[in-house]
């Protein structure tokens, strides 16, 4: 990707004034910083895995309905 460096490392006054209407977090560059990781706790993992198993099981049911001739 091409990068245009502005002399002095700052965009022109016009651009700066324009960019001031954005919140700092809205700038593409700011989004490159990752948010801190949040580690899931036991009950959350139980819920997530239960729902994952539910989804797998139900998808099998849908496939069964489609291909086993259950009308």
């Amino acid at each position, binding site marked *: *990707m*091409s*990068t*245009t*460096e*502005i002399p002095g*490392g*700052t*965009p022109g006054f016009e*651009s*700066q004034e*324009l*960019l001031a*209407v*954005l*919140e700092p*977090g*809205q*700038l*593409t*560059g*700011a*989004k*490159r910083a*990752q*948010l*801190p*990781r*949040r580690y*899931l706790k036991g009950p*959350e993992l139980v*819920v*997530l895995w239960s*729902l*994952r198993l*539910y*989804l797998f*099981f*139900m*998808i099998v*049911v*849908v496939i*069964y*309905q*489609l291909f086993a001739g*259950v009308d």
Partner: protein
Amino acid sequence: MGMLTGSGGLLITHEDIDRAHDRQRVLAARGKRGFSASARLLWLLIGPGVLVMLGENDGPSMLSYAATGATFGISFFLPFIVLTFVMAIVVQEMTVRLGAATHRGHAELIFERFGPFWGWFSVIDLGIGNFLTLITEFIAIRAGLGYFGVPPWVAVFTALAVLYLALLTHRYWTWERVTLAAAAFNLIFIPVAILARPHWGTVGHALATWSPLPGGLSKDSFLILLSNIGATVTPWMLFFQQSATVDKGLTKHDIRFGRLDTVLGAALASVAAVATVIAASPLFGHHMNAQNFQAAEFAQALEPLIGRVGASLFALGIVEAGIVAAITISTSSAYAFGEVTRKPHSLNLPLTQGRSFYAVLLLCAAGAAAIVLIPGLPLVHVVLVVNVVAVLAMPPALIFLFMLANDKEIMGELVSPRWANMLTGAIVILLITAGLLFGISVLAPNTFAFVLRFLGR
């Protein structure tokens, strides 16, 4: 324009400049008082909510509503459909808050907060669901235009051309307005409903009272129930609205308008959905089993009852529904791909800077379109199950949304209030229950009859 380096050392991109122009207009409107300034502010800030709701009134959804009206009439389903849109408002409102508070897309937040393991699960669910749904959109477009004698390949290439044209401006604002204008045609189902000459007193009565499900509980009624739920709440909507909220540049100060946007979208979409049920209800009066009907078959079946004009409008409505959904769903896939691969992802990007974003967007649509053109594929099965699969995939997606919307570290004071959490919990339980009952109806179809006999009914 390339990328500039800002005073804080941050890279300033073309995307930032375009978004700043949009925000400048919002701030100018916000600085004024009076009705016209408020109306202008609303005009500037609506978009993601209306698009997501009308986008979800897609090909399979409109066919599902039509099958509902034709198979079960209006008595039970009109209030049920309105209720599903209330559910959609509760769910989608959280994505507005998340997008405005964090300025990050849904896939991005799941990856960053919960790690790539759960992130990939979510994105794979999304990718598979989106691709299946995209196939159904092109089926709808092909079938709808087929009513007018348009060959399948012309129909499919026309839809791809519209999708491509909407992207040509490389500007979120223009893309949004073009897509909104196309989405407005979803209301074409209102004149079709009027042409069906319903008894409006009966329609009012159906909406005001909630009659029992005609024919009771059965596998067919569960399939339709799930299809109707899947016609209003699906995972792609969460990803799309949050990413579009970010791309549009909404901030915490805009959340009120974001909510209004969502409610307005739900109101418009529910009117179109209810109109579709009413439009197809004459088939119910003639005892036609329309559950496996495709768009053209619906239009043909309706023609003797509502006339050539009504049937043509119905077919056009299905085409519009397919095109708008193809645009929004492929965009949601492209946003999610960019977010997890950390590649540029914005409709404000010029082609040179957003190659991967536009490539994913167009390849998803083109891949689905190509599948529809393969002769002899049993595509009708895809149409029937796509909304059901969406409902089944929704609870895992909702749990991530719930956890993110309650994450004080990223949401601050904008965490979900208790009432929103209770409603979300109720929606998750309802979706899981509906899914499990559907599973029982498939694996043990006589269970409901046995239970009703046991209860002496």
